[in-house]
């Protein structure tokens, strides 16, 4: 399949190389022509603008820093929209804004062109290996058309539903992962300043429940909201966070995110949940967000992608 590829940065360059390695014929473009050198040496063709690429191929992949660059490439002067042919499928691999994706999707649809959002997860090493995870939103038929190309980039290419849904997953993934880093920093600074050597903290936390925790198991517990049998009583969790809070005050360590967690537990106790399992507090956030996330075990264990 001849594929256009726009945006040859760390991620884009590695993904384009994966496509090329697996035998795809590439036409590439980047604001820095230097970035294309290795791909051109290996046989790729160069195009001076997104519009020039759209003129040559019927599958275009974009990997750009963000919404502003995507908007220029897709909809701006010299952008894809200027010369794209009906039947073309554009796949945006960037982490983009769902709102902009929907707007661009609409513009392209009017020209008989399908836009898919397919943000990737896994970082540069897995981009080089072609073993990324891709979450893809947009027209399902278009997804099936380009899936062979996407399989060259990712070992997990997962269809998510309408345009923007791939990005929803990516944004949840990244924002939560980043918040977890920050809450870990609070705990590690507290542990260190309160007297445990960082090296020792690293060794021993790995052997406790936090270190042994698999996020995917924790998510399952939240989706199932299994409050019986009570594993960790919410009232006890509140006491533990309170003790940590007091230790932090004595040690002079601010705990912004852990304080927020403490407030959440107090709220849950006031809502009468003290004697339930700690996962019961999920109900508070559900109510705040006015949405329900509970799954049955059967739903949780059935595999949509199989």
């Amino acid at each position, binding site marked *: 399949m001849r594929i256009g590829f726009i945006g040859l940065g760390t991620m884009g360059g590695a993904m384009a190389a994966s496509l090329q390695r697996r035998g795809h014929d590439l036409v590439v473009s980047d604001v820095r022509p230097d970035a294309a050198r290795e791909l051109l040496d290996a046989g790729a063709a160069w195009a001076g603008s997104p519009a020039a690429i759209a003129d040559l191929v019927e599958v275009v992949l974009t990997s750009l820093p963000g919404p502003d660059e995507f908007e220029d490439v897709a909809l701006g002067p010299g952008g894809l929209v200027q010369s794209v042919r009906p039947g073309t499928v554009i796949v945006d691999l960037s982490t983009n804004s769902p709102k902009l994706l929907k707007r661009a999707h609409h513009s392209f649809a009017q020209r008989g062109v399908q836009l898919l959002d397919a943000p990737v997860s896994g970082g540069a090493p897995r981009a080089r290996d072609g073993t990324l995870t891709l979450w893809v939103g947009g027209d399902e038929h278009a997804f099936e058309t380009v899936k062979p190309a996407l399989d060259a980039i990712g070992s997990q290419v997962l269809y998510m539903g309408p345009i923007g849904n791939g990005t929803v997953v990516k944004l949840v993934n990244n924002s939560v992962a980043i918040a977890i880093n920050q809450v870990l920093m609070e705990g590690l600074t507290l542990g260190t300043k309160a007297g445990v050597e960082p090296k020792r903290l690293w060794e021993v936390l790995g052997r406790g429940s936090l270190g042994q925790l698999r996020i995917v198991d924790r998510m399952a517990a939240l989706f199932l909201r299994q409050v019986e049998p009570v594993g960790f009583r919410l009232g006890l969790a509140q006491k533990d966070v309170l003790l940590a809070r007091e230790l932090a005050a004595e040690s002079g360590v601010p705990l*912004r995110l852990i304080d927020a967690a403490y*407030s959440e537990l*107090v*709220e849950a106790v*006031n*809502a009468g949940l003290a004697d339930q399992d700690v996962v019961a507090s999920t109900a508070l956030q559900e109510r*705040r*967000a*006015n949405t329900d996330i509970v799954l049955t075990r059967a739903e949780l264990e059935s595999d949509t992608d199989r």
Partner: protein
Amino acid sequence: VKIGFIGLGSMGREIATRLQGAGHELVVHDIRPEAATAFVTAGGRLAADPAEVMREADVVFTSLPEPAVVEAVALGARGLIESAQPGKAYFDLSTNSVTTVRELYRRFALEGVAVCDAPVSGGPAGAAAGKLSIYVGGDEPAFEAHRGLFDTFGDNVTYVGAIGAGTIAKLMHQCAGFIVNAAIAEVFTVGVRAGVEPLALWRALRSGAVGRRRTFDGMENQFLPHDFDRTTFTLTLAHKDARLATEVGREFDVPMRLSQLAFDDMCEGLERGWAARSSFVTMLLQEERAGVHVEVPVEVLRKVLEAE
């Protein structure tokens, strides 16, 4: 009455000076005896320890830096409690912990000594001018009997309720001030970083509806009577403004932690279906989280305001 005074620091010194200046006989104590010199020169007596102060005085005040110090002075070796006698009164002017003042009340009650917590607001300058606000909790008859003493250093003396109530009022007052400071820092940094000149911003903010209002004014219209349905400024409008404001923070890379919390409450309020209610309605969310209902009937509020 003979007055005992323990703790002659920056606040205590000024308050004791006011009491002495009003003609009261003083017996004082401080861990730094030199702090007592001026009072002794003016006719007061320096006691060797708190127990001696309590033995000689009818009414004892303490003005001390923190709960541990108050506990040591009141209940420790050679502390006030050792010479406590029925009919005496003890007023703690420190900003103390609620638990500690309640414990003092209980222990001194066993000896027949009335205790009030009476933390003050207004700083050393206010103390020197006799213009402190004093929040009193505890034994009301004892407070009323000695109210004249408080009037020598406070111009706004309020009996708030049972023991600890004065301290709670003071601490919540402080806390409101701290939050307001943090909020002001947040909006000024955003405003200036986004390009407004600080002085111009300050003048503009002071002139607005929030700027003109004293912090706790306006609560009688909506929050206290729980009347969130007659309004010209709906939650929808407030949400829109908060969204635009936090967008400015994002555009100019200024973290807006408090604003974001307030905005999140507004989102939650909209999800509850409160769009057309007053922007104050999000205060109900905190009541729910706290498991408490805060309401004063409108006619009671009206009477209080008319009396002012």
